[in-house]
């Protein structure tokens, strides 16, 4: 049974996490009351770590669109997009995403993880080179590895580190894909996309930006960090998810290159996955419509984020480098972070616990994600709960 011996380490990890109280990887929400409230172990709990940036999960129009799709199109497509799984809704959503990002085409995937895997596996092949931001999401690492391309990392958000590596690639730089994120999900910091784009143009490379956490959050129209920094039209591929600002599940790739239309013939994660269910497509389409027509949601989100960030900073907490809807509170010691996370949960506040080695600098973080749907009272309660950790 030595095959299973590798799970000993996982068992040790599990025991360590559960030792301080609730296992942070096993929280169960017995009920979800709204976009910002749930019930955990019988306690009413404020949700402050759910990536529900625009708070659309209970939006009446999104819910109604989902119900209608369930009633008229059934519970699932029972097949992949290449076979029986392409409905009119899938194509309509792709057209709407293309319109949103002002590019010729978009492709819908069943998960955000699948979008990254499917896009990278289609774009790259052995012999190609990838320059990947060191703090990139696991799905980007996995997609790069799956492609068989040569993967080289550069220092997180470091323009000169990227340039040194482009230089080292020599002639290969023109067969190189630069992979970065718009906003990074652990610390909430944004990439210097304008500078990265300038480099990619200088070296005739291609850039892919994962805007999973930044669509709906950044930019005048909520298109993400590329829009905010004025380089949306120069980004080659934008990937993202429906499971954050859009409150559903699934992912997409949008591109100004018409080759995207051929991904469906070469992207194995796209070909061999059942397509998103009609209700998911319907709620996503409605959420995208809300994102576009209700800029006040974004304004409210930033209001809440700015207030929480400022208050936590005033309370002496060390935070991520910039104000954003992801607010990471740094706790040096892992044990202390685990204890504080449990204390917050027992006090009715759910945040994410981020532990090393999955964190920058081997520190631990209590990660809050703010929502447009948080009320002023809820933000006050979150601030008070964090202040209580100082006692």
């Amino acid at each position, binding site marked *: 049974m030595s095959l299973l011996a590798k799970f000993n380490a996982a068992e040790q990890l599990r025991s360590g996490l559960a030792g301080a109280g609730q296992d942070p990887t096993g929280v169960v929400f017995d009920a979800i009351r709204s976009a910002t409230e749930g019930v955990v172990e019988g306690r009413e709990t404020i949700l402050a770590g759910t990536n529900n940036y625009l708070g659309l999960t209970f939006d009446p129009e999104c819910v109604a669109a989902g119900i209608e799709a369930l009633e008229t199109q059934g519970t699932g497509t029972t097949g992949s997009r290449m076979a029986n799984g392409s409905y009119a809704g899938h194509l309509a959503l792709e057209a709407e995403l293309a319109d949103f990002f002002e590019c010729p085409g978009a492709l819908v995937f069943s998960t955000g993880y699948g979008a990254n895997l499917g896009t990278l596996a289609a774009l790259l092949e052995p012999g190609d080179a990838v320059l*990947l931001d*060191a703090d990139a999401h696991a799905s980007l*690492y996995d997609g*790069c*590895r799956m492609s068989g391309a*040569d*993967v*080289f*990392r*550069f*220092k997180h958000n470091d323009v000169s*580190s990227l340039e*040194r*590596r482009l230089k*080292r*690639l020599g002639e290969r730089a023109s067969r190189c894909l630069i992979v970065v994120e718009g906003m990074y999900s652990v610390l909430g910091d944004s990439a210097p996309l304008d500078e990265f784009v300038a480099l990619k143009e200088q070296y005739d490379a291609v850039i892919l930006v994962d805007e999973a956490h930044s669509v709906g959050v950044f930019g005048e129209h909520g298109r993400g960090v590329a829009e905010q920094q004025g380089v949306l039209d120069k980004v080659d591929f934008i990937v993202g998810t429906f499971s954050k600002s859009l409150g559903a599940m699934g992912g997409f790739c949008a591109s100004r290159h018409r080759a995207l239309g051929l991904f469906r013939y070469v992207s194995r994660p796209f070909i061999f996955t059942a397509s998103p269910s009609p209700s998911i497509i319907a709620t996503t389409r409605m959420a995208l419509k809300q994102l576009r027509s209700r800029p006040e949601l974004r304004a409210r989100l930033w209001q809440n984020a700015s207030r929480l960030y400022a208050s936590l900073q005033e309370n002496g907490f060390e935070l991520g480098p910039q104000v954003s809807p992801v607010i990471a509170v740094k706790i040096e010691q892992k044990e202390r972070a685990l204890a504080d996370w449990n204390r917050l949960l027992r006090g009715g506040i759910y945040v994410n616990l981020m532990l*090393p*080695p999955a*964190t*920058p*600098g*081997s520190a631990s973080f209590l990660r809050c994600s703010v929502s447009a749907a948080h009320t002023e009272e809820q933000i006050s309660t979150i601030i008070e709960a964090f202040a209580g950790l100082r006692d």
Partner: protein
Amino acid sequence: MESVLQLSVKAVSERLAQILTDYLSNNWGRIPEKYRHITPRTNMVTELQLDSFQVMEFMLEVEDQFDVAIDLESLSDIHTITDLASVVIAAHAD
């Protein structure tokens, strides 16, 4: 710096050991005292127990100091400082 190609595995290993010592100098953390003198034979996995973040930071430093590009895939074959020296020399020859 003289060309890496002109250096022996031993010489590159010694330089790598110094880079790693400098990197860890303020953060020996849980590394047992007996392993803190880093040599070409030091095993970064079993002795130093570097976590993935530390490996990444160290590798980025090595790439910049030797002006080489080390593919992520190569990392799985690297256990000792000497292993890494061979990879650095090979990367420089590419």
